[in-house]
Structures are given as C-alpha cells and as structure tokens.
C-alpha cells in the first residue's frame, strides 16, 4: 500500500460506516469533528424515509435510503427520476445597483451579457487564479443575483464575500450603488433529476416547463407554492433545482417524492456527477488549481479573457499565454477501480499525475476516474497506467463527460 492511497480498509471503513465509507475523505476534509452536525430543514423527513445519515460538509446528510443500493439508486436517476436534498448548500442573494460589476470583479463570468433568469457555472478565484469555490450564479436583473455555493466551503466563501463587499462598497462605485448580500439561511434546496423529472414536475404546475430550457430559471407555481426553479443539476440528466422557503421545504419534499420519484442520497450523487464529468470541490478542484488546467476555461467568458478586470485575472492570463503545466482528464481504467490519490504513471514509468476521483461506473460498467496529468499526455486515447494496490493498471485518456448529457434544450 502506498502512502498516497486513500485506504478504506475494512478495518477502518466499517468503524466509520456510520460516517459512510466512500465519503469519509470528504467528511474529514469538510467536517469539524468538535462541532455538532447541522441539519437541513428535512432531516426528520429523511430519517422517516429510512435514510442512512452521514456527516458531510458539516451536515448530517442522507447517504442512501432503506435497502436501495447505490447502483440501483444511481440507475433510477439515469432511467427515471430521483430527488436529492441539497439544502446544505449556501444560497445567497446579491442586490444593489452595482451588483453586476461587483460579481464580475469576483468571477471571470460575463454577467452583464447574461440574460435575466439565466444561470451560469462560475468560479470564485483568488489573486493567484486558484479556485476558492465553484458556484452557480443566476441573474434575475442587473441589480439582483441568486448565488449557490458549496456547503464545504461555507466559511471560506462567506469570509471572502464579506471582505470583498467591504472593499467594494468603500470604492467610489460602491458608494454610489452599494451591494448587499443576503444569505438564505435554512432555505430548502431540492434537486429533481432524471429523464422523468419534467413530466413529474409538469403534473404539479400550470407553468409550461417546455419553455424552461437548460440553464434558465423561473418562479413557478407548484401546488400553491411559488418556487424558484432552475433547470439544471449535478447529474448530467435533465432536472430542476428548486429553492424553497424554510417552513415549506418538508411539504414540498413530500410532494416531490411520490412514485416514480425515489429519494436519492450522496452516494449516488457522487457516481452520477462523476459520470457527467463534473468536478467535486475538494477532490477535483481546490485553491491550488487554476481554471485552465481544470478544463474550466469555458467558464471564463471570451470577452473577459483579454481585458476582464476580475480577481486572479493576471494569473489566469499568464496560464492562458504559457499553457497549463497539467490538465484534468478523464480516464478509463482496466481491472481495479482507481480512487482519489492513485498515482498516474507515464510511458517511462514515471509519475505524471494523480487521480482525484474514481469509481466503477454503474452506467458504463467500466472503471472511470478523473485526475490531473502533465500537459501533452492529456490527449484523447493516450495510454497511461494507474497504480492500484502496488500494481499498474492500464488507463486510457477519455474525453469528459463519460456520458452524453441529457439536458432540455427545447
């Protein structure tokens, strides 16, 4: 066993089984052992539905429900529809006359040209161009944005926003149109995901969901509730992320979890997002990763690459000019699945990178992984090797995502 391997031996994994074996590394990174775990608004609902609750990002979250195994749960979302509680994530509103400019300073996204009620994946970058967090920003108007950030980065993100808001509001521009941030504490966030998501939600609303394309959002009347519904998700499937006021979350969850919807836990969420080629913050990206090597250059709007004045812009431009030294790639591995930390070896049997996430893919029946390799070895079809339990296994660079997404584009 190599030191770098994340060993989840039976010895340790079962002792930590209540903490969820596969998610142990995340829990360890994100959780603070001394603090009691927080609960989302529908904790009781999960328990009543037979959830196995585990610590994740400081919250007690459902790993799986009842006897439904991770593979069955995963497959149900790919073939039908599943409901995820993502209420641990941080939801915020940014309002003010200069909100667009403020968020364009914090991110490399072109928010001024983003149409109203549209969302974009974006990044909070530090001065060195490292990724503080990935985030979904939804524009409601040039002076009103709805932002969702990761639970595991709550403290860092909120401190960053607070500091940058102070700096911004002290500038001449900020004084003329100060920006305020409102954290939607205890609001619910549910993700209805899968090819059956639209027909299920359509049965509960008069709003024509055919008009709500991938990446768009709207306030949708759902059985008497008026909910913010954003079309998208973290599975590669069609779906919706639904924001719900605190006292309505459980009732909405009940409404959204009837047949054929299955409640789906963190276990399946991880395998679904990995097949969809999406990054998990803390595994695949972190403050030492820049957007270019992470394969997220597309997140930086073209019009802002040359001239954009955003935090980290100089560092980003330097990498764009020189080219990144390493690249995030997809791998298909023969034999054993490679997990986070597994060494990626090059043609001369030297280490050329590491795996950042890896699973046996339930949909493909192959071992898939993401990781970083030296530039030049990142091209499709490049044959590498990955070390698992001291043995080298053949690994082939494969384009991400592993599965073609199934988004609703009209």
């Amino acid at each position, binding site marked *: *066993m190599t030191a770098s391997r994340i*060993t*989840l*031996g*039976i*010895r340790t*994994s*079962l002792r930590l*089984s*209540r903490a*969820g*074996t*596969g*998610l*142990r590394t995340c829990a360890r990174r994100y959780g603070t052992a001394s603090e009691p775990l927080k609960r989302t608004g529908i904790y009781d609902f999960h328990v009543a539905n037979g959830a*196995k609750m585990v610590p994740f990002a400081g919250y007690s979250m459902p790993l*799986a429900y009842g006897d439904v*195994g*991770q*593979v*069955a749960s*995963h497959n149900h979302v790919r073939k039908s529809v599943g409901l995820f509680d993502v209420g641990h994530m941080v939801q915020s509103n940014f309002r003010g006359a200069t909100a667009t400019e403020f968020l364009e300073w914090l991110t490399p996204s072109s928010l001024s040209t983003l149409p109203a009620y549209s969302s974009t994946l974006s990044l909070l970058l530090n001065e060195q161009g490292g990724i503080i967090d990935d985030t979904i920003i939804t524009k409601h108007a040039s002076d009103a944005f709805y932002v969702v950030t990761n639970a595991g980065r709550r403290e860092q993100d909120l401190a960053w926003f607070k500091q940058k808001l102070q700096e911004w509001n002290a500038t001449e521009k900020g004084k003329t149109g100060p920006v305020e941030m409102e954290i939607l504490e205890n609001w619910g966030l549910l993700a209805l995901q899968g090819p059956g998501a639209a027909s299920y939600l359509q049965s509960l609303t008069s709003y024509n969901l055919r008009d709500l394309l991938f990446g768009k959002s709207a306030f949708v009347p759902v059985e008497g509730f008026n909910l913010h519904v954003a079309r998208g998700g973290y599975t590669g499937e069609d779906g919706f992320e639904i924001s719900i006021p605190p006292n309505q979350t459980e009732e909405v969850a009940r409404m959204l979890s009837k047949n054929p919807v299955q409640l789906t836990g963190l*276990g399946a969420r*991880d*395998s679904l997002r990995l097949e969809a080629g999406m990054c998990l913050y803390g595994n695949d990206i972190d403050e030492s990763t820049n957007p270019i090597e992470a394969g997220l250059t597309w997140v930086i709007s073209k019009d802002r690459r040359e001239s954009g004045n955003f935090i980290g812009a100089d560092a980003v431009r330097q990498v764009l000019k020189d080219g990144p030294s390493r690249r995030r790639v997809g791998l298909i591995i023969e*034999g*054993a*699945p490679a*997990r986070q930390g597994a060494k990626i070896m090059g043609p001369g049997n030297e280490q050329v990178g590491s795996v950042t996430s890896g*699973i*046996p893919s*339930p949909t493909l029946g192959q*071992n898939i992984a993401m990781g970083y390799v030296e530039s030049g070895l990142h091209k499709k079809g490049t044959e590498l090797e990955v070390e698992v*339990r001291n043995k080298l296994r053949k690994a082939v660079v494969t384009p991400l995502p592993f599965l073609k997404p199934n988004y609703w584009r009209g």
Partner: protein
Amino acid sequence: MQSILRTAVLARPARAFCMRTPAFRPVSFRTLVTKRYSADHESVIFDDTTGLATVTITNYAQSSLGDVVFVELPSPGTEVAQGDAIGAVESVKAASDIYAPVSGTIEEINEILSSEPGLLNKSPEEKGWLCKIKLSEPAELEQLLTEEAYKAHCES
C-alpha cells in the same frame, strides 16, 4: 446498522459445526469445523481434516460496504502473514482492503467472484468466500474472535 446486524444474526442460526471447547469434540471421524472472526470483519472457517481455512467477509461487512462490484484476490501459492493486505473488495463508494486473518499459503481462490462479485452481498459467508489458506501458524486461530466476541465488537 445495529438493526441490520440484529436481523442478520437472527437469520443465521448458530451453526452445528461451531465447536467451542474440546470437551464437545465427538469421538468420531466427523469433520471438525471451527468458525472464528477477525476484528477486520472477516470470518475464518477452519476444517481440520484438510487443514484449510476459508476466508470470507462477514455479513456485517457486506451490508456496510453496499453493492460489491469488484473483488481482487491474491494468486494461489502466495505466502501470507497474518495482517498482510491480500486483496480488496470494491463497491461503488469505496475500496476496502482484505487482510489475511491467518498466516499460511493461499491454496485456492474463489474464481466465481471475478464474474459474479455480487455473490459477496448475496452469500458473504458461504458462496461468496474469498480464498482458502493452508495454515502455517494454527495457533493464530485461537487468537481470533468467537462469534459472541465478534458480535460484541460490531456493536461497540
């Protein structure tokens, strides 16, 4: 987890071959089979006529691991010492190492697991056995846990 364990234990009546003390040893040619457990959630079923110990993961282990999708086993002929990592059981969520609960030589591995890893979930302590080890240190068996001690270990 505890409720799963309880069900599992109830569903698994005490096995007739579970010998605890030599006092109960019948004076006959019956095969004597002893079942012991490791703290790493493996069971060892020792057959004294063949001198072979069959290694399995426990039912408790399979229920904690979830759907097993890949099993890696050692090559027959490998000499192992108690505590050596000899393979792994992989579910979608995690890889779990298998440690040799006893020292000896790997005599046989369960080839069916390469095509049917799900046997580990369906029949962990019988059809889903992992490997058979020819003991080099039979005294090690005595240091392993009895069924009661293992049960207590799982509940602790």
